[in-house]
């Protein structure tokens, strides 16, 4: 079933080269400084990766889900934070290419040409995380504009994003009063707030976004008013397989690579560490976990790209992929620390960093608990 097209192989090989040559060597430094890696932006832009989700007619790669999975996996294998800006930008451009008008899309793409191309996906609020359907950031119509007030929290890429896809309340309570608007970072009254001080996932530019009487043209409304929630569930949530899922799995594969290399060289109690069966079995279990996560992700991508399955079946597969890969990522990176011992706990070791980064994937982009809720709901409905 999993046989890649020539195009998919080409993209994967290109990204693998980028990951090895440009991404991996900078990982420890970015982890230390928490600075948004503008050098990654340059490399990604040069290779068209920031526009991967756009159709060729809009200058994109027209990447299918499988290709996106491969891109993110290869980058995360080098450094889990590295693909995050591609995921937020890719998800926003995917929503725009599917739900915005042609005129809107062209206008936004032209705007992005003037900057870094980075977009943020602004949904979460401080008090509305898993319960995003009750978000409170409000957009009130005023002539040709909306006036936006409120704040968003934990917004990945928000530190540098040119355009922010913002979920706002335009109607009544719940998911039926939510709209999606595009807010330019140069808008008056729009502020990038505090950078979230996190345990891991450094360099992702995760910030608070503050809207203080921000006037946004009604031309920036995507789709219909009060129908924003559907854009989230029908389009954006599907990114969880190639976004969070592939991030977790690629990161776990990287940890496995690192630990295998370590174990081959390590000697304890007079014999090579690979000769201890307890270590061998841990390694085998880690490889089994990574491979099953990969298989689930690839199968989900395959099903999505074939367009044959029902929405519900796809959604269930996406939830399972994200949840399972994130749990595997945590377990495998933690076992990697265990095998490497004190050295794996040392700051600056790739394994210690991978474990801290793995944790965030269990939490972000719909926590694993939310994935289980959706999967169970679909099973039972």
């Amino acid at each position, binding site marked *: 079933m999993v046989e890649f097209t020539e195009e998919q192989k080409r993209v994967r090989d290109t990204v693998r080269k980028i990951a090895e040559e440009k991404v991996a060597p900078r990982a420890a430094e970015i982890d230390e400084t928490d600075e948004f890696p503008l050098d990654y932006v340059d490399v990604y832009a040069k290779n068209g990766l920031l526009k991967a989700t756009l159709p060729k007619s809009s200058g994109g790669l027209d990447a299918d889900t499988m290709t996106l999975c491969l891109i993110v996996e290869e980058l995360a294998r080098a450094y889990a934070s590295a693909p995050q800006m591609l995921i937020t930008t890719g998800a926003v451009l995917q929503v725009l290419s599917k739900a915005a008008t042609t005129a809107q899309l062209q206008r936004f793409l032209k705007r992005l040409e003037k900057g870094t191309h980075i977009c943020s996906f602004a949904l*979460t609020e401080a*008090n*509305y*995380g*898993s*319960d995003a359907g*009750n978000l409170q950031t409000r957009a009130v119509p005023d002539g040709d504009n909306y006036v936006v007030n409120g704040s968003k*929290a*934990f917004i990945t890429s928000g530190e540098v994003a040119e355009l922010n896809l913002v979920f706002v309340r335009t109607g009544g309570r719940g998911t039926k009063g939510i709209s999606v608007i595009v807010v330019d970072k140069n808008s008056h009254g729009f502020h990038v707030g505090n950078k*979230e*001080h*996190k*345990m*891991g*996932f450094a360099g992702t530019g995760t910030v608070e976004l503050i809207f203080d009487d921000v006037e946004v043209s009604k031309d920036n409304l995507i789709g219909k008013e009060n129908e924003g929630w559907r854009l989230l569930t029908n389009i954006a949530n599907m990114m969880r397989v190639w976004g969070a899922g592939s991030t977790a799995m690629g990161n776990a594969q990287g940890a496995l690579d690192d630990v295998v290399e370590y174990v081959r060289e390590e*000697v*304890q*109690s*007079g014999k090579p560490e690979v000769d*201890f069966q*307890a*270590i061998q079995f841990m390694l085998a279990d880690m490889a089994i976990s990574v491979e099953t996560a990969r298989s689930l992700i690839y199968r989900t991508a395959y099903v999505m790209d074939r367009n044959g399955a029902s929405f519900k079946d796809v959604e269930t597969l996406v939830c399972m992929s994200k949840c399972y890969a994130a749990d595997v990522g*945590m377990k495998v990176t*933690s076992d990697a*620390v*265990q095998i490497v*011992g*004190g050295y*794996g*706990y*040392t*700051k*600056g070791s790739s394994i*210690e960093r991978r*474990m*801290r980064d793995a*944790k*965030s994937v*269990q*939490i*972000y982009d719909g*926590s*694993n*608990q939310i994935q*289980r*809720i959706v999967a169970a709901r679909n099973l039972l409905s």
Partner: protein
Amino acid sequence: MEFGFSEEQNILRNSVTDFMEKECPPEYVRELDEKEEYPHEIYGKMSKLGWFGLPIPEEYGGSGLGAVDLIIVGEEMSRFSYEIAAGFGISVFCGLNIIEHGSEEQKKFYIPKMIDNKIRLSISITEPNAGSDAASLATSAVLDGGSWVLNGQKTFQTASDAKDTVMSVYVRTDKDLPKHKGISLILVPNDTPGVEIRRIKMLGRKMLHTNEIFFEDVRVPKENMVGELNNGWKMLLSGLELERLYGCSTFIGSSQTVVDLALEHSKQRVQFGRPIGTFQAMGHMLADMQTEVDAARLLVYRAAWMLDQGMPCMKQVSMAKLFGSETYARLSNQGMQIMGGYGYSLEYDMQRHFRDSRIITVSAGSSQMQRTVIAREMGLRVV
């Protein structure tokens, strides 16, 4: 079967709790963790109450407490700070080792100073090529006139850089004997010329610090050897049960705090119109967490009771270490999951538990080594 504590033990527990509530608020722990500072201040206050002498025999100025007493202290102290409880243990157990094996002069010289917090004691075994296989250590000590001359390198040494610390350094004194038999114990003040201590940046243990130590022609008086020449391995293993059990007690106190923090968050955090703790998945997760803490606690209590009765209990101690450390690490991960983005934020305490707990399944005998010990106690010749 008796699950209660004596009245003295209840008083002991309450006095530790009262002290820690007053002297060790969350802000204090957070600040030391962030600034990566050794907790001198609180140790000074503890020493005024005589705590560093709690398990030390009365004839050397201590209170002569037993194993159960000591784990009560560790459990309560670690509810407030894992690291403060851990650092306390390091000095105290090095002191007990001197009591057990040292000369009368050594006991009279070092022990009162340790109790009065004038010096700290630390232990130094691990080397770059001697981790779980500690008996392979290679740092050498050679007698030259009236001095031992030390050369070599130690790594992953906790708290050895705190001011006025005397390090218990395990060294090789005879290369020709089998590896377990050529090891000795020598006391080396950390400001001795030729000692160079370099901090290793670690994910956790920010207060106590983890270090590499380089010994280059370090000279200490001949009298600094503890016990007999080439008898170090036996000293290293003696008293291990109590030391490990104390470590276990800090895992259960810390684990309880993790559950308490997660529980409080799950009661206060409202999503979908109700506290998230009222969702069955969350409620059950918390129920499992508390069950695991209690199971870990009972393993520790049982082993401590056996030790106080003079029963052999290496297997029970290893089980308590294996399960207790794995529990703290697993629970802090789950606690972070329950707290979501807030758990991952450096502005809340859960991430500190996540960071600090991750090393305890590795250090002081990794989970893998504990399993090997347990399996051997079960009659299996596991290698």
